């Protein structure tokens, strides 16, 4: 059987993700790789991403939980902390990672990042500049991209 040596912690986390999903978040492992998750995050209400369905992919490296999961957006998104390849600038995915965190907390943090873009710690320089120069307009662009790319259709 594939993935028969999956650590107990990953099995437990997966079971809980499936049985008690966090609001607006779904994560399910691939059939052929139990460390590789298909993730959907709904754009939070009151954010420019409201109404959007965002696809992400998440991978638990061999060192997990001593190393952070790897996560990126597959859906195009206009956000100062997310780059064109969907890579995410989030401290807990890097130096602030702790094995006390889980897949669930990571995904909740990503959802929170959608509610609170942080143009002072940018990954996409151009989007961050736009955000700082004219936030109203940048938010409009983010809404437009949500309609165009994250409508779930």
């Amino acid at each position, binding site marked *: *059987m594939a993935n*028969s*040596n999956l650590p107990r912690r990953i099995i437990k986390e997966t079971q809980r993700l499936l049985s008690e999903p966090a609001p607006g978040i779904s994560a399910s492992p691939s059939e052929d790789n139990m460390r*590789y998750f298909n993730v959907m995050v709904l754009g939070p209400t009151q954010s420019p991403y409201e109404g959007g369905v965002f696809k992400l*992919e998440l*991978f638990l*490296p061999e060192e997990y939980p001593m190393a952070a999961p*790897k996560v990126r957006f*597959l859906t*195009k998104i206009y956000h100062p902390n997310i780059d064109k390849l969907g890579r995410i600038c989030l401290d807990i995915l890097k130096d602030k990672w702790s094995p006390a965190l889980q897949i669930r907390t990571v995904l909740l943090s990503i959802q929170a990042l959608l509610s609170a873009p942080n143009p002072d710690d940018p990954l996409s320089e151009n989007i961050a500049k736009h955000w700082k120069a004219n936030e109203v307009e940048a938010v409009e662009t983010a809404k437009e991209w949500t309609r165009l790319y994250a409508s779930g259709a």
Partner: protein
Amino acid sequence: MVGGSGEVVVPRNFRLLEELERGEKGIGDGTVSYGMDDGDDIYMRSWTGTIIGPRGSIHDGRIYQLKLFCDKDYPERPPTVRFHSRINLTCVNHNTGMVEPKKFNILENWQREYTMEHILTHLKKEMTASHNRKLAQPPDGSFF
């Protein structure tokens, strides 16, 4: 690493992100390098590789450009590799610049752990291999 069915398999996209980051940092002595062609392509399919001809060979000082295409089945299957710069090697098709898997061991006997760096490094070695050393080369700076 646990062998057999317990082995951790890095999925395609995360594997290519690793290769991208490694390529951006620069590899070894800089005589082989690669980068992504289209920064907007979320699937990271098209890449350009560069090989600087090895010292003491007929290729010395030449800069060869190649195109690598990593399809959805990468790295289970190897990328297609094509020289953009003209070159005369036994494993390269004379008309198209395609590296022919049957004549290039790395592609013919591809393994999942191999990377674009492997391919470029071994092509550089091919340039100094005895079966290639005596081959006349097209003018520098010409393209397929």
